[in-house]
């Protein structure tokens, strides 16, 4: 059942569950951040509306910088603004930022310790019809490998809004990963969100869980659906929302592994270097258990509808259920 302590969306299992793009939560969060803190500024590389920075830009035109199609400049200009006390949010598609401008992020943001927030929209395979060039499947790996940066991948629009507001206060660099497609609303305004804290969203009706499913991003919804069906089939699971990939909640992950002794990770990202790899690093050092990884298996994406692609690349509800059965069979 849904964890009753977290005040999650009670309508999550309705067929007409509200669906909102995760990026929209960022747009609303940034607008609010702008109202709360006058040092917040927005920079965009010719994608203001599709990254949802338009709400901020319309309300605070004097605090918005349009840099044109120039992602390297986007980041380095933001670094300079941060040097003067601003809290810059830089938005583009994840393929371009942090894709194209990785070294600039390293030198001028993380190495230079400037509190710039890099917002990568349109991440994952569910970008859909635009095809493989536009589907960022490597961005988590690119960002989490760098010292001195937080990496946050919210599960829905409401969490994205909370994450945006939280990042204003951290005083350090961050990468915020967003998705384009409409995603079911899982949380509510009352659901707790803390950058370094992972929460268990799904728990067994009673007793201990046999497997733990750790998810980052919008696939959390499919994982919860899978957990619900597995429960009916007599397999008890817990589902964790790991929206903060860095810093990573070691305590929560180890405690889940100790209870279940079998883990499945789920993300719209290459398996190599992604959230699953981060979880594996934690468990290998603290409490090794069998892990199954749901994600992209060393491939580029292609055109299609988000659902077609999620299914094709083995990241849908049935694939998650299959991975749970597989990991249970591997349990010692």
């Amino acid at each position, binding site marked *: 059942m849904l964890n009753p302590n977290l005040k999650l969306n009670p309508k999550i299992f309705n067929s007409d569950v509200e669906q909102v793009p995760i990026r929209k939560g960022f747009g609303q969060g940034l607008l609010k951040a702008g109202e709360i803190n006058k040092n917040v*500024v927005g920079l965009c590389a010719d994608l203001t509306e599709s990254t949802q920075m338009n709400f901020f830009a319309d309300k605070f035109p*004097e*605090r918005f*910088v349009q*840099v*044109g199609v*120039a992602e*390297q*400049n986007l980041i*380095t*200009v*933001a*670094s*300079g*603004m*941060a*040097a*003067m*006390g*601003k809290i*810059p949010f830089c938005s583009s598609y994840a393929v371009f930022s942090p894709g194209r401008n990785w*070294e*600039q992020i390293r*030198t*001028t943001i993380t*190495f*230079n*310790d400037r509190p710039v927030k890099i917002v990568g929209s349109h991440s994952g395979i569910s970008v859909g019809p635009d095809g493989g060039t536009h589907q960022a499947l490597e961005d988590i790996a690119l960002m989490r490998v760098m010292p001195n940066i937080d990496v946050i991948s919210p599960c829905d629009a409401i969490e994205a809004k909370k994450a945006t507001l939280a990042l204003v206060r951290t005083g350090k660099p961050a990468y915020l990963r967003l998705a384009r497609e409409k995603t079911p609303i899982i949380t509510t305004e009352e659901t707790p969100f803390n950058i370094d804290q992972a929460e268990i969203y799904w728990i067994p009706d009673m007793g201990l869980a046999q497997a733990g499913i750790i998810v980052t991003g919008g696939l959390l919804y499919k994982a919860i659906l899978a957990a619900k069906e597995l429960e009916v089939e007599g397999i008890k699971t817990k589902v964790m929302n790991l929206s903060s990939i860095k810093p990573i909640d070691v305590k929560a992950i180890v405690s889940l592994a100790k209870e279940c002794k079998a883990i499945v990770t789920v993300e719209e990202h290459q398996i190599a270097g992604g959230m699953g790899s981060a979880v594996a690093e934690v468990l290998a050092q603290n409490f090794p258990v069998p892990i199954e990884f749901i994600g992209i298996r060393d491939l580029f994406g292609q055109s299609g509808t988000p659902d077609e692609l999620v299914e094709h690349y083995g990241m849908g509800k049935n694939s998650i259920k299959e991975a749970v059965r597989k990991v249970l069979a591997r349990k010692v």
Partner: protein
Amino acid sequence: MLLTEEKIKELATKANDIRMSIIEMLVEAGSGHTAGPLGMADIFTLFYFHILRHDPKNPFLEERDRVVLSNGHICPVLYATMAHAGYFPVEELKTLRKFGTRLQGHPHREYLPYIETSSGPLGCGLSQAVGMALADKMNKKDKDRFIYCFMSDGELDEGNTWEAIMLAGKNKLRNLIAIVDRNNIQIEGFTEDVMPLEPLQSKWRAFNWHVIEVSGHDFRALNEVVEEAQAIYEKPTVIIAHTIPGKGVREFERNYKWHGKAPNKEEGKMALNELRALRF
């Protein structure tokens, strides 16, 4: 600011001292860049001892002018000038590139917080300076101070530089002044052979900058063009400063082979003797 004959003499002596420090620190380090730092010694001296609004005893003074060094590899001249200006002891220059030093091989703000940015990878200093000037413009502080970006001609090969030039032109950043070290060399040879930059003036002008060319070793002329740049109200200014790489040591001058290497003990001794002979 008025530059008297007496002050010019003083600056020339100081620049010579700084060149000697550069040689000493490079010999001690055993690696590093020689030509660029020697070539920029006059300009750095003029800025830190005459032009900049700054206070070495109060390095985080809010109203200070900002100095962004984009081509971080010439940091020996930055470190030596800052030491002579009083930011830290001149003796510390001998720690350049050594374990535990504040004077990292390329500038790192975490180790030496008195510098405005970390740098080394080329082509991203100007855009940081643009960001600083944009922030000043937003805060209506662009009449209170100047943002100076020291950059190399070689890094004009980088696309990021031109993205920054375009954005600065668009936003008419009046308190942004770029100083290009036009020494005509880069690692693999002369700039016009590796990747021709000329006509450099008209390129910047086409991007809506005010452009001035000047000798990088003439204190009076340099001071005048900085005053001109400060007086330009409606656009950013670039000063293309023609410098002699390796300036002050005949053996090193205009020779791109000295771009990226340090003098050994013997070469250092020869260089110091030559510089000592130039003392006023």
